[in-house]
């Protein structure tokens, strides 16, 4: 286990290095650059721009800029935003919890409902429920998230007026209930596609386990069907789902980006788009590295979790 961890962490560091290089190069290939926004302002002279460029260190060769940035990062200095001079980590932290709130609640919805649909489809194979779940999953998977978002807003906010059309809270209210009220629509929209994915995987995993010999053994022992399902089938079927959860995280993050834009949710997705618009390199790079670390870490945690749950790996 320690050997395995060490290996995975080394792999992750190499991966982060590659991500950072690609990110840095691509970002600097974009037309414009951080100073382009001042180009339209006639009160700023070329001399001002040169001075700014030197202040920000943008006059140096690209590789020097990268090495400087990477070296500072290793020391824990993520740089400062070009926009307001605030430390990048602080900027990210301001938006972090909004995204986590959205991702967390939609993941809870996706996993619980998806697993439930999957298990029920498997135990009622060929039933109306099973067919409805299959068709529903196809629909959810083939329609983009932003469309669901717009339809949701149209129906539930504009027509029915039940739910707010955007933002995280009502200014001046900000109670827990108010937050929850705002959370319902975006978290469900973000969860939809993942409910579909989870239900499909869970269905096939459950069917797979139901055909295993040890389920027959359980039946031969005289256990009730309910106990067989809960104790023998679901536990074994959830095992591959833990890995799936780790793999799914990046797509939840991407989905969150789209959902945040549709619902004007003040999270990392919005921050990313805004920072890109302003060519705020330190923040964009910071977000890139942060999400890469998040993805790698969640995969690692999923692997460790599988190892902890499965005695064949834990004790081997």
């Amino acid at each position, binding site marked *: 286990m320690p*050997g395995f961890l060490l290996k995975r962490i080394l792999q992750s560091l190499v991966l982060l290095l590659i991500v950072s290089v690609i990110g840095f190069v691509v970002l600097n290939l974009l037309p414009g650059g951080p100073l382009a926004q001042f180009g339209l302002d006639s009160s700023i002279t070329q001399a001002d721009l040169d001075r700014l460029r030197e202040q920000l260190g943008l006059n140096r060769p690209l590789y020097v800029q990268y090495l400087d940035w990477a070296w500072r990062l290793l020391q824990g200095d993520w740089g400062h935003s070009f926009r307001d001079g605030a430390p990048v980590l602080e900027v990210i932290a301001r938006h972090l919890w909004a995204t986590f709130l959205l991702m967390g609640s939609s993941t809870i919805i996706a996993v619980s409902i998806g697993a439930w649909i999957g298990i029920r489809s498997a135990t009622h194979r060929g039933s109306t429920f099973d067919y409805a779940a299959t068709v529903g999953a196809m629909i959810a998977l083939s329609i983009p998230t932003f469309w669901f978002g717009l339809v949701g807003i149209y129906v539930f906010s504009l027509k029915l007026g039940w739910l707010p059309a955007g933002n995280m809270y009502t200014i001046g209210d900000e109670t827990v209930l108010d937050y929850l009220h705002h959370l319902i629509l975006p978290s469900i929209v973000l969860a939809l596609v993942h409910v579909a994915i989870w239900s499909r995987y869970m269905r096939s995993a459950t069917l797979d386990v139901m055909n295993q*010999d040890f389920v027959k053994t359980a039946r031969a022992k*005289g256990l*009730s069907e309910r106990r067989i399902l809960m104790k023998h089938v679901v536990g074994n079927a959830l095992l591959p789902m833990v890995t799936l959860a780790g793999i799914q995280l990046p797509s939840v993050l991407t989905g969150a980006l789209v959902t945040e834009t549709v619902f004007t949710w003040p999270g990392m997705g919005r921050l990313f788009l805004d920072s890109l618009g302003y060519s705020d390199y330190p923040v964009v790079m910071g977000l890139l590295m942060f999400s890469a670390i998040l993805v790698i870490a969640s995969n690692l945690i999923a692997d460790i979790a599988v190892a902890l749950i499965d005695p064949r790996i834990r004790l081997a």
Partner: protein
Amino acid sequence: MTPQYQTDGATGPALSVRGLTIDLPKDMERRHAVEDISFDLQDGQILCIVGESGSGKSVTANTIMGLLPSSIRVSAGEIHLGGAEAGELIGAAPATLRNLRGRVVSMIFQDPLSALNPLMTVGEQITEVLTAHGVGTREWQRARVIELLTEVSLPDPQLMYHQYPFRLSGGQRQRVMIAMALALEPKILIADEPTTALDVTTQAQILHLIRDIQRRKGMSVMFITHDFGVVAEIADSVVVMEKGRIVETGSADAVLKSPSHPYTKRLIAAVPALTGENRAAASNAAPEPIIRVEGLGKTYRIGSALFGGEYLVKAVQDVSFEIGPGRTLGIVGESGSGKSSLGRLLVKLQDGNGGRILFEGRDIVPLSDAEFRPLRPKIQMIFQDPFASLNPRSTIGHILTVGPVAHGMDYPKARKEAQALLSHVGLDAGAFERYPHEFSGGQRQRIGIARALMFKPKLLVADEAVSALDVSIQAQILELLDQIQRETGVSMIFITHDLRVASQICDEIAVMQKGRIVEQGPPSQIFLDPRSAYTRELVDAIPGRMPAEARLSALN
């Protein structure tokens, strides 16, 4: 014509099956899984239900347990449970059946590797039986499980209680299954091929354990098997099934010594005899061996050297032998003995470390793949699983000709030879255009043999080539291999876990244990006068070394 056995007074049969007919789904090749079968499981007896695959023996067992899949239905008949809980099982409410399962009727299965939940400890899984039937307090349950683990002779029951199944050997897992089945002292134990997946010495121990427990508890056991050797070892009475019908019933003695139905006779005759007779030489012993192996070794590395935890497994150690033209060497061993690794080394599917393999005088160990390629046709392999070793998307014709054509034979010639070989191995010429799924297991193995023969090999390596086949098919394939060897003079290495099979076809047998050859000699020595303790143990463990007169009468 069901003979009535004497029953001692008050005790009726523990279980009687009357006129049981079970339908198969519509699109299957047969209408009924079993048809109008009747038999009694007498109180305190072991009844063996014998049959080959598709005979309906497992379906019958599952019906008694109420474990049939919903696509298969009982259309007629009764299954009556005797004793204190007497009642009719067919049509009983699911709750009633569930209450009987594990408490009055228990079952153990063929494959102990997959019959236990990998995520639960042994103790938890046995305790579940007690909990499901609401028996005992927690402390009592724990003590009972320890007692059961002791009863089935598992080492260190206290530790075993907390062990996960993957830590246990196949034999130990089957003992856990037996402990689980015995938890509530059921009247009836149904054992569905419980020793088929086990090594021969483990099989002997498990058979002994079942017999022993049955006697001590006075249980009634319904033991399902395809192996008359096992029947001879354990049965009080026998039911023989063929294609869903009962063809013969009787006491074990009567059926084994004087079988009346031709199918029973065929089955008994097909059980490989342990005559200890040497095989008549197929050809004049030529002085020059086809293959000579000297000091061959193979070591696997497990784990990683860089991150620690590496250790070495010596799969093959210092193995030496030679085979003359037209002769067969049997390599016999239990799982993990290194016999399959040795087979892969011989056909260079794997590289060894150390030793020489002299094929027609040339050492093939140092050859690269490219250098070995011209020699490959001369050494051919026959695989164990006739279902997995043929590409399902290719016609038989393609399967047979693709290799020779790749090695430079022109297609019309390859086609002609393939068709000749197909009829030679007992298939009709039409087989050339057909696909593997259209053939039975035995026929597929014939195709596998024909494929190997396409190259006119000097050496055939057969790795468990008949293990997946029913005994009667097994006998036919062994006969075919023998005939081919006499006609073509090919040498053979026959790898098997089954000493009885090896005794049928081998001129010489090498017994492997832990990667080494512990004894080598002609069958007469191995079976009648074994030199090593391990060989003796193996020979002693062979189930049902049948009295000669039983076999004679079966053959008449």
